[in-house]
């Protein structure tokens, strides 16, 4: 399956890219599993995520064509 991945703020700068198109052999990944697949390590502490622009957790399932975003804690207002 194909997943559209976005990174924001400090995470975007540290990874050196705003996102990537991920081609995955599995079709039953979670948000946390996708991070593990892409970065070969466990998700960092306090990582926040969204799937299709809605708040998600590391356990939220990811499907073909989804937009998955990873970002640090928000600091607006």
């Amino acid at each position: 399956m194909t997943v559209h991945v976005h990174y924001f703020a400090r995470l975007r700068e540290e990874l050196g890219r705003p996102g990537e198109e991920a081609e995955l052999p599995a079709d039953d990944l979670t948000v946390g599993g996708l991070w593990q697949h892409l970065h070969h390590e466990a998700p960092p502490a306090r990582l926040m995520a969204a799937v299709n622009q809605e708040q998600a957790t590391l356990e939220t399932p990811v499907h073909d064509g989804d937009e998955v975003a990873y970002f640090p804690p928000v600091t607006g207002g």
Partner: protein
Amino acid sequence: MTVELHSGDFDPWEVVRQAEQSIPANARGAASVFVGRMRDFNEDVDVTGLFLEHYPGMTERELERIVAEAEARWPLLGCHVAHRVGDVRPGDALVLVATWSAHRVAARDACSDILERLKHEAPFWKRETLTDGTQRWVEKNTPGF
């Protein structure tokens, strides 16, 4: 309900004045307004500039969800939320939350709830530029209470 993002400086009091025109004049017994502006210091360090990153699409949806949930909880006559994005200078308005209701408690509590939830849930991130030119991402908001 109106939610808007501003990529340039905006006058929050003019926004409030305009928004109030659409609230029924004889019913709006109470208005509650919060305006947040950029300081030129944070954690005892001088700050000369601020960049506000957001997630186009999701940021607007999250703000609309937060306001819709407040409208379901309190009897509001109107609500206007404006937030700055992009490069910001000290003194510029960052956020405006304005609520109207027949009575003070609904207007005041809804305004406070929307602001606190915005700060913890809406996808915005601040990056500060310090006087020596270095930049740092703000790691967390100041406590609200």
